[in-house]
């Protein structure tokens, strides 16, 4: 057994020296240059293996069942809808879009607001640099990462069975989603904070609350505002799919018009949502520019 082990070690050692020899160059002035070891080939092989496995599972399985010809012949179907959306665009439908659009904005506003209120204390509790020598941040971070695993739609789906359909479940789903993502972004900011000013102000005799308010808050507030605005944008975009579980707002009419195959109306809805998102994006870019 011992002999076998030593033999294997010998083989590994010779392989090592060989690979170092292969990677070493002798320059004209006699110095030796060794290239660093490269794992590119190994990683490429692993990726290729994963790719082939999934390709086999999904794409080949599809072509074996239906054939390549079938797939090619149905590609135009995709463009028929796109074509209908562009050619049939129904501008007069805009009147019917305004009300749901406002509801969507209201849900996003409230959801972002309440989610932020909930997130603020938790974000400070989850920061490793403020809460020292304690397990609380680790536990909170773990719970947060579980909350973040589900998309907004899954939350809305679960709530729709408890509360029935309506704007309320959209609001609840938005709050939970916002809470999960905002808390993470906030504690990442707080963990980069410089604690020097806090200690300095505390040493002048201020109490913990005052020193916290005057040293930590000014360092993070600007970044917090931009995080909140960014989340508002995300929530607006997400509202388009919340309608699928009957959560009210623009998603609801989008879903209706899609099932009615009124693609002219659909494109009008998409366009109005796009307009709102672009306006909000520009406002938040302006505000962020002011803040920093």
């Amino acid at each position, binding site marked *: 057994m011992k002999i076998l082990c030593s033999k294997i070690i010998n083989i590994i050692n010779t392989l090592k020296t060989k690979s170092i020899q292969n990677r070493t160059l002798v320059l004209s002035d006699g110095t030796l240059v060794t290239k660093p070891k490269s794992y590119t080939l190994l990683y490429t092989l692993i990726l290729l293996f*994963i*790719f082939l*496995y*999934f*390709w086999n*599972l*999904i*794409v080949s399985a*599809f072509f074996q069942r*239906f054939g390549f010809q079938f*797939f090619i012949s*149905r*590609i135009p*179907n*995709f463009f*028929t*809808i*796109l074509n209908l959306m562009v050619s049939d665009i129904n501008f007069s439908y805009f009147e019917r879009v305004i009300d749901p659009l406002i*509801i969507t*904005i*209201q*849900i996003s*506003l*409230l959801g972002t*607001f309440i989610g932020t209120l909930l997130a603020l204390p938790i974000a400070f509790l989850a920061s490793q640099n403020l809460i020292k020598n304690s397990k609380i941040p680790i536990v909170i971070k773990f719970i947060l*990462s*579980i909350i*973040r*695993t*589900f*998309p907004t*739609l*899954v939350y809305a*789906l*679960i709530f729709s*069975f*408890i*509360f*029935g359909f*309506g*704007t*309320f479940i959209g*609001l609840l789903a938005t709050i939970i989603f916002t809470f999960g993502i905002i808390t993470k972004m906030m504690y990442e900011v707080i963990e980069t904070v410089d604690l020097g000013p806090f200690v300095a102000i505390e040493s002048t005799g201020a109490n913990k609350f005052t020193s916290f308010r005057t040293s930590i808050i000014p360092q993070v507030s600007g970044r917090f505002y931009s995080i909140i605005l960014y989340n508002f944008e995300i929530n607006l*975009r997400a509202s*388009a*799919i919340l309608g*699928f579980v009957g959560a009210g707002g623009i*998603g609801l009419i*989008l*879903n209706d018009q*899609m099932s009615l195959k009124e693609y002219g109306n*659909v494109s009008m809805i*998409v366009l109005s*949502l*796009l307009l709102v*998102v*672009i306006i909000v994006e520009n406002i938040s870019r302006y505000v962020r520019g002011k803040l920093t």
Partner: protein
Amino acid sequence: MKTLPQNLILDVYQSRPKTTLRNIFIVTTIIILILWSLSVINYPGITESSIQISRNILKAFVNPSWDLIFSLEVDSIPFLMFETLGIAFLGTLLGSILSLPFAFLSSKNIVGKFAYLGTIVITIIRSFPFFLLALMFVRVSGPGPLTGVLTIGVLSIGMISKMYVEVIEDIDPGILQALDASGASLFQKIRFGIIPQLTANFISVMIYRFEINVKNATVLGIVGAGGIGFTLLTAMSAFRWQDAAAALWGIVVVVIFVEFFSTKIRKKLITGE
């Protein structure tokens, strides 16, 4: 050491920027907006059945149907999660390949002032509701995971090319000049001057988007585009909470696993450690 005279400190303190008026304005705006928004919420109230359902859901969460989790058959949770991962993986790959032309055509340092045309296209793709896209692809490849791959692929173009553009616009032209000076050919300039500057960041973007796509792929099944979403939806509509809880646990495990590795690999790629 020189100390500042007391009254100078006071002067400086008194002439600090006054933000009270601005703060009052911002706070009132927010309060008005919130009050205005409150009108939209119609609280349905908690009834006997909703309490019963929440209790059932919580109970199922603690005790999901284990035989769905621990089997490898076609409709088991591990199989469906593999399918979901596959949709996300192939979709991200497709999206990152499709993004390359979009990204290069909307970078200011490559096409100059025509970049805004590409930017508009990218913004439109980014805001396209992904269920609509999925419904369009269902017409092509029927309900099944391939539809999910195509949807995720086209949908990813928006964000991936937006982040690619930032990387491309950061290319250091000095390196290209240095290669020019040493007499490199065009191919050598691309191989040793441009590609090494892009790969690490591009791969980091791809991994980040993969993480998002895994989450997206979990709900794609709701419109019949493969993955675990369909099982989740049918289990819930039939009030089979234990099966639904099994699917939800599957999502939790896979997403946390993916998130953990994605963060690790991206950190390694960016910092080189």
